[in-house]
């Protein structure tokens, strides 16, 4: 590993020998980290590598068991986030903490000292928005904003406190490509002002683009320090997981299988006030094929998933067909009994019940199809056995014999959820954002499992915002925009530009005309 020292002089933030124990578990083990003035430093590692723990220590949310923290050379003990903020450390969280029914300005006012008037604050928001090229309308209510706009509120909140170091936790995991592009412009500007960044991400190309130094964590230990600009994404990933990552082996050009999943001119009004109406959606997924649906978040993906899974019924029976059977008016259990399986986007609270054990979470989606609840009586033995085979086949790492779902890291819970469905050997699998916020190794495992399932003759419908993922494993890709679906393009012939244009809605006239 090349040892680079990008900036000279006394570091802004300096950690020495940080250890954090939770009981017997060592989350951080002897970690050293220096961040200099104006430096963008990346913290990379798999889920469960100890990144979040370390960041919480820097932000004052956790106290280290051992080790020292120094800010601008002065040894400090951070008593809490307020203390960290008063010393110039700001943080933008991965999950937004905003009130939907309040305006942008009100949401920002909530975290600032009380003596701010809302009027004066508007001017300051406008100033920050202007300086960092982050358009923000102070009087818009949050529910009407996209994920990117919401994130700007979080960033503005952080910047109004004039931090010297800004911590960003997986900031692009919720953004469309264009939104990420704007975020990077803002971050470049922050760097140019001499502020430091601590950037936590799985996306190695972003790290290469933004950061001049990187600390790599694995299993709680610091395993590397490098200049990411001089490394390849592949070598970084290898450092992160400790082994070479295998490519996902795409299924070689499929012979066209039978039409397994047919959606025929499906239209349905949104159920929720801020939802998207689906209009004239038609698609065919053949056995042996991975069919991708690209699109920016909030263009009807979750509505489409709900209708395809049967969580929401209300279309005509013939609008959705599985292996010839008309199932548009059938509930999710009926569809499962016909050989369909589903993986929703949200792991905690949708695909799995966070406070239920893994065994109980097996029962959750498999009670009708796995014989774990014969005659309405739950067989915990059978559910546990099925859970064990999911855990070993999909390499799910967990603490304890049968822990609650919420104690698993994102990647491990996702492997469990995907494994639970794939082990039912479905003929049709509909997955929504299967690798959102999942580490590189789990990502590869999940994609490989989808490709393998298709190779065994199943029809796989993949809804994703990750273009890399779509191009990596899909045979055909269609784009959803504002509740309408474009014609499917052959993934091998299509370019990112074509898909990108469709994602912004410019290429949709033809598709809409076609649907009528």
């Amino acid at each position, binding site marked *: 590993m090349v040892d680079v020292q990008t900036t000279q002089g006394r570091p802004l933030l300096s950690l020495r020998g940080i250890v954090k124990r939770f009981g017997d578990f060592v989350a951080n083990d002897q970690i050293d980290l220096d961040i200099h003035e104006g430096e963008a430093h990346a913290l990379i590692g798999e889920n469960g590598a100890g990144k979040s723990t370390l960041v919480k220590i820097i932000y004052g949310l956790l106290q280290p068991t051992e080790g020292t923290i120094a800010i601008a050379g002065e040894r400090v003990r951070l008593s809490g986030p307020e203390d960290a903020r008063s010393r110039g450390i700001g943080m933008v969280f991965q999950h937004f903490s905003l009130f939907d029914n309040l305006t942008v300005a009100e949401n920002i006012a909530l975290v600032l000292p009380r003596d701010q008037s809302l009027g004066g604050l508007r001017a300051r928001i406008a100033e920050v928005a202007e300086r960092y090229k982050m358009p923000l309308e102070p009087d818009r209510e949050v529910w009407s904003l996209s994920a990117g706009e919401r994130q700007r509120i979080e960033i503005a909140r952080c910047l109004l406190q004039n931090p010297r170091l800004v911590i960003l936790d997986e900031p692009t995991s919720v953004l469309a490509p264009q939104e990420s592009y704007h975020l990077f412009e803002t971050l470049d500007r922050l760097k140019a002002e001499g502020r430091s960044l601590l950037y936590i991400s799985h996306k190695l190309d972003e790290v290469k683009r933004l950061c001049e130094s990187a600390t790599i964590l694995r299993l709680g230990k610091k395993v590397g320090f490098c200049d990411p600009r001089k490394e390849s994404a592949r070598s970084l990933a290898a450092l992160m997981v400790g082994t070479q990552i295998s490519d996902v082996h795409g299924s070689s050009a499929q012979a066209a299988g039978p039409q397994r999943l047919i959606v025929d001119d499906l239209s349905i009004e949104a159920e929720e006030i801020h939802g998207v109406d689906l209009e004239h959606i038609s698609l065919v997924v053949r056995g042996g094929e991975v069919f991708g649906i690209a699109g920016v978040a909030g263009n009807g993906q979750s509505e489409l998933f709900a209708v395809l899974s049967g969580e929401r019924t209300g279309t005509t029976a013939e609008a959705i067909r599985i292996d010839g059977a008309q199932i548009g008016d059938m*509930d*999710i259990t009926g569809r*499962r009994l016909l050989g369909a399986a589903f993986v929703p986007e949200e792991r905690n609270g949708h695909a*799995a019940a*966070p*406070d*239920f054990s893994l065994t109980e979470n097996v029962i*959750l989606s498999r009670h009708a199809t796995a014989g774990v*609840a014969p005659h309405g*009586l739950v067989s915990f033995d059978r559910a546990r056995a099925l859970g064990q085979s999911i855990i070993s086949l999909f390499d799910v790492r967990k603490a304890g014999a049968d822990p609650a779902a919420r104690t698993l890291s994102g990647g491990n819970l996702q492997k469990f959820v995907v494994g639970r469905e794939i082990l039912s050997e479905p003929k049709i699998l509909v997955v929504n954002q299967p690798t959102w916020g999942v580490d590189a190794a789990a990502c590869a495992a999940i994609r490989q499992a989808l490709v393998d399932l298709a190779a065994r003759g199943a029809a796989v419908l993949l809804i994703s915002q990750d273009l890399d993922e779509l191009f990596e494993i899909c045979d055909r890709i269609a784009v959803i925009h504002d509740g309408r679906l474009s014609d499917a393009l052959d993934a091998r012939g299509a370019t990112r530009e074509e898909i990108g244009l469709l994602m912004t809605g410019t290429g949709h006239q033809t598709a809409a005309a076609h649907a009528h």
Partner: protein
Amino acid sequence: MRIDLEARQSRSLALDIGAPIIALIAAILLGGLVVWLMGKSPTRAFSVYFIEPLLEGWSLQELAVKASPLVMIAIGLSFCFRANLWNIGAEGQFVIGGLVGGWLAIATHDGAYQSAIGGWWILPAMLVLGTLAGAFYAMIPALLRVWLGVSEILTSLMLVYVAELILDYFARGPLRDPKGFNFPQSVTFDDVAHLPYLAEGDRLHAGVILALLAVLIAAFVFSRTLFGFEVRLVGEAPRAARFAGFSDSRLTIAVFAISGGLAGLAGICEVAGQIGQLQPTISPGYGFTAIIVAFLGRLSPFGILIAGLVLALTYIGGESAQVALKLPIDMTRTFQGLLLMCVLIADAATRYRIRFRLGALA
């Protein structure tokens, strides 16, 4: 100053069991304070409320008799509450169950309809009728919620007063004993319409066995059946429950039917076991007290059994305190209210850590 509630990462079993006990102790201390402010001796009151009823055979029987409707209703409520549905109207379902079941006893009074096949069928039929009537009465808030999205909290509560007035009307009007010197009460039920006694003293009736059965069946349903899993899942993670294929509407109707049915059964047991006739009032607020029982028992069947005995104690102690200490009967309700508040606070404290922060919002 700011008060924050921070969710606890993990819940310990000791805390789960300890919280209701601490709540009970806190409520007793607060109740003692009220008694002291009224110029009576708190230690004497404690002894009258909580010790003396446990020392004599008759009062132990009385304890079981008072606990059984509380336990039966609270078991039903635990199905609703676990699914995050709030049936506050068990009192009304109790009253309607008692009225409809009691009607059969009055209709068959003095051997009517019994010549052909005898009277053996009357008591079972009364229990079935009472249960069904309670369940049907609970369907009003359940269906209003499912069809129109009306809050079940308001409708179920308001229907309590409707039920009480219906009973009042029948006890004073159509079902009044014609030879009863215009007293507002029905005829006394025949023996065939009366729950059998289990012990000497003519207090402990067979309703106690039904309450114990309800506890055992509920424990089995929650731990071993898919339906019990469904109830817990809907309360814990509603979106996941929809993904699991469990229908909100069906579950709402099912848990309201169970809780209404058990409240109705408790009502007819009270009428056929304790009172032996219909009166304008048949409940000292069992349906409301059962809400406290359900929470004090942490919505678990065996916890509810214990909590039912504790609350029954306050009823018996309250009656003796009227005589021995000249404390008003309202003291009992005050104590029950204090207990509910303490239980809810303790419940919140097991789930959240309370932090006081000084200074402005940060």
